[in-house]
Every structure is written in C-alpha cells, then in structure tokens.
C-alpha cells in the first residue's frame, strides 16, 4: 500500500521493522568505526614526553568547543549560526518529552524535559539557522568550492529530520500518522547515515579534540 492510502500502516512500518533495521545498522556501524579508531591507535611515539597528556587534552576539549575570539572575528557567521543550530538540534533531540520517552524505552534512562512550546521555538530557530548555513554554503565563494555531495546530503537529512518534526508537532501535514511516519523515517535515515559519513563527528569530535591537546601536551607545546 502507498503511504497516502495507508498512513497508519506507514507509521507502524517506520515505528516497527524499519526502526529495528535502522538502529541495528547504526549500532553496528558506529561500534565498528569507534572500535577501529580506538584499536588502531597511533604509531608509538618513542620520544620522551615533555609534559602530561591528560590536562592539555581536556583543555582542548573545552577550548575548541567554546568559540574562540580570533575565529569569531574572521568568520562570525559560521561560528554563530553553527553554535545556534547545534545547540537547538541537541535541545530538540534530548530535551523534548516524546524523545525522552523514546530514550527511556530504549535504554531505561530518562531525565526531565523542557515544555513543548519552548522546544518548538528552539526548533523554529534551528530551522532558520540551518537554512542560513545552506545559503551561506551556496553563496560563499570558498565554501562553495570546498563543498562535496556528502556535505549537501548530510545537510539535507539533518534539515529534514528537524523540519518533519516541526511539521508533525504543529500538525502541518495531514493525516498525522503520515507526518510522524515521515519524521521517524528521516530520523532513521539520519541514524543509518551517521556512522558512514561526516555525521560520525557527533561521537568522535571530543575524542579528536582530546587527542589534539594530548599530543601537543606531550610535546610541550601550548594547546
């Protein structure tokens, strides 16, 4: 049956078998990537360490996460919109009550959520910021040339997940099972693509930030 003729069937498919497939691919892919990265490690460094690794490592985790003034001056747009939509995305994903219920169902852990209207506002801001990043990418002479198909692909899934969530919550697609099914479908696409694209950075970014600082620290360079 097509989705228009059987919206409930579509929703149950995305909530049932498809979700299981997506979450399995996600878990398998992510564990494989992380195991590979961590086990592979780095070439042994036989030089005498000049200083500790841990502290500088942790320092870069923090410093590279906070916007630094120099970069901000050079590219205020990138820093600001980037920050806004990342925060918005995480708020919608982790502090929206239906999502918390999902995480509770999956892992048994839960935490307090934010009121729906607040998450909705954050979502609207996130959508605008995400749209702005695309416009910027398409118009900025250097960024445009640096962008690959993959960049556009992951922008599209990210945007679509948030957009369909917004459309579902605000009842802008009818019937609702179709709207929610589309949202869950795009979220599943996101999950499936995550381990195999740049989206993996969600899980590797802090490892990488730590590693940078640690290797500087070892060499006695300021991180």
């Amino acid at each position: 049956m097509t989705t228009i003729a059987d919206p409930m069937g579509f929703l149950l498919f995305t909530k049932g078998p498809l979700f299981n497939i997506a979450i399995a691919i996600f878990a398998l892919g992510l564990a494989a990537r992380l195991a590979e990265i961590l086990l592979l490690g780095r070439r042994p460094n036989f030089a005498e360490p000049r200083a500790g690794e841990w502290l500088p490592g942790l320092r870069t985790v923090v410093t590279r996460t906070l916007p630094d003034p120099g970069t901000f001056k050079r590219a205020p747009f990138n820093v600001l919109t980037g920050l806004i939509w990342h925060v918005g995305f995480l708020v919608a994903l982790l502090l929206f009550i239906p999502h918390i219920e999902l995480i509770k169902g999956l892992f048994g852990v839960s935490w307090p959520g934010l009121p729906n209207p607040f998450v909705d506002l954050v979502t609207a801001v996130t959508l605008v910021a995400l749209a702005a990043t695309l416009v910027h990418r398409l118009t900025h002479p250097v960024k445009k040339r640096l962008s690959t198909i993959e960049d556009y692909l992951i922008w599209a899934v990210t945007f679509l997940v948030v957009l369909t969530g917004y459309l579902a919550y605000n009842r802008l697609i009818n019937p609702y099972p179709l709207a929610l099914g589309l949202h869950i479908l795009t979220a599943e696409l996101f999950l499936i693509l995550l381990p195999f694209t740049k989206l993996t950075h969600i899980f590797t970014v802090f490892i990488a930030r730590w590693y940078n600082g640690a290797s500087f620290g070892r060499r006695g360079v300021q991180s």
Partner: protein
Amino acid sequence: MTTTKHRVGEHLRDQGVSRRAFLKFCTASASLMALPPGLIPAMAAALEQARRPSVIWLSFQECTGCTESLTRSHAPTVEDLILEMISLDYHHTLQAAAGEAAEAAREQAMKDNFGKYLLIVDGSLPGPDANPGYSTIAGVSNYAMLMEAVEGAAAVIAVGTCAAFGGLPEAAPNPTGAVAVMDLIKNKPLVNVSGCPPVPMVITGVLAHYLAFGRLPERDAYHRPLAFFGQSIHDRCYRRPFYDKGLFAETFDDEGARAGWCLYRLGCKGPSTYNACATMRWNAGTSWPIEAGHPCLGCSEPRFWDAGSFYAPLSVPTDLSSSRILTAGAAGALVGGTVATLARRTVATAATSRQPVTADELEQTL
C-alpha cells in the same frame, strides 16, 4: 420490522412521531454531520420522501459489541428513530426469527430489493484463501455469504474496526486468515465506521446521511466519513492545553493525573487516532475515555492491536529490544576490531619485510 408504509415520513407518523420530533431529529443529524443549519429544511423534505431502505446486517467474526453500542441507548433516542427509518430485514442477533426462517427472510429481502438494499457488516471474515470453517452461518462460509449479499447491495457499511480493518481477529498472528470487508469489495460504494466499538451516533449519522441524500457521505483515505473522522482525538481533546504547555501525567495517580493533565506519557494514541469520541462522547454523553483518565487506545485505526503497548507513548517504537542493539553493537565492535587488527598486521608485515633501497637502485628502476 414489518410495515406497509414505505416512505420515511408516513412511517414515522404512523409510529406517532410528531413533526417537531422529526425536525429535531433532522437538526441533531445535521449538527452531527457538521452540515450548516440552513440545510435542515431541505434535509427534512428529502427524508420525508425517502423510501425506507431494506437493510441486511451480516455479523461475522465479531463480539456483538458494535450491535450493543447501537442498541444500548435508552428511548426515545435518535438511535431508535433511525432504526424506525430503515427496514431491518435481517440481523441474526436482533431479529425474532431464527434458523431457517431467518435465512429465508434474508434471501427474500435480497430478492425483493435487489440492487437497492443496504448491506451492513460487522466483524471480519476469513479471506478467500483461508479455511472457511473458522466462521460459518447456517453452514455457509462468511466469504460466500458476503459475496452473495453484496451482489444486490446499493452500498455497504462496514461497522466496527473488525469489519473496517480486520480488528482483533486479524491481529498477529491472525489464526483465521481474517480480512476486512474493504479488502474484498472493490466495486460498491463502501463506508467504514470504525471504532471498537464505534460511537453509536456515528452509525446512525451515516444512515441518516444516506437516507437524506441518497448517497454515502464524504470519506477519508480509509473510507471513513469525514464528518466524524475528519479530526484526530488530539485536535479535539479538552486536555490539549496541557499538552501544549508540556504538562503530563506520568503515572495514573500522580499529581498530574489528579489535575487532569495530558496522558501522552501514559500511552495516549489520541494524536494518531481519528474518531468522534472527543466531541460526541460515550454513554449518552456522560464522558469518554480520556475524560475518565485513561489514554486513548487508538481503537478506530487499522492494526491498533498490533501497534505496540497501549501504555507506551506514541513516540516509542512498537518492538523495542535493547539486547538487539547490544548485539548489533557487539557485532560492530567485532568488525571494527578485526579491521583494526588486520590493518596492524599489514603494517607489521610491511615493516618486517622492508628491504633497504639505495639511491642508485632507485634510479635504475626509473
């Protein structure tokens, strides 16, 4: 059940129904179907002149809850009136006749009103490929009886979620091979009045519409009448302001439950369920499930028995298993580990088998 008067108007007058009562009925039906009040006079005129249709009601794999729903209201009601407007020629629970006399009445009505009778079905039935022995009436399989009865029907009304979508008999693993009426009937006007059971006024509303306008009402993708199924429970729920503010009951007896907050976290399927409960309510308007403090089960939607726990929130997938995720993760770690080990081995063998090369040797290979 037997009467000589064929026009609705005459018949009602014979039954002692006053003109005012009739007008009131028309007003209630129009309001029910969200028709503008300006249409009431025309509707009354059409109903007056309408012929009382012969109705054949077939009950297959069902629990009789739908018939209970229709007849469980106290007189004098709109439901009673509508039953006066039709000529219910066969309904094996309600009719006085039984056995061969009942089957003979059905065949007679089908013959006399060929092409004009209304066929109402409650219950699902074993499909053409299933064992017909799971459900028979007077030795005739449900499938054969339906197909025979549908031949001469002007329109088909599937009453209840079982007839409309398969319902409980069709729930996994569907031992009887049950199918919905709409899976079998493609060439007749068909309306699904889903619900487990359906709101009684919705059944009568559809009948009133058919009588007044001579055709079935506007329907949605599932052939449900839009006047009753056009909006979700959630969109008409009086607890909606709490949802919009993010105030949820988390157990059945916490502060939130007592204060009447939204039941989303307790598994309410109101957002994805289309039905008229929120406005028409149950038991002669006394209350309805959400008002009584229980989440909506989604009973008017296809496959609601198989849509996961009634008490799991709508956002939770139907068949969760953390062990599956752990297994997938472990398999992934294994794959990653193998890849890493292989890579290390390649590097190591490359290192051991490395042959020093001089600049001269290199030059020669060029």
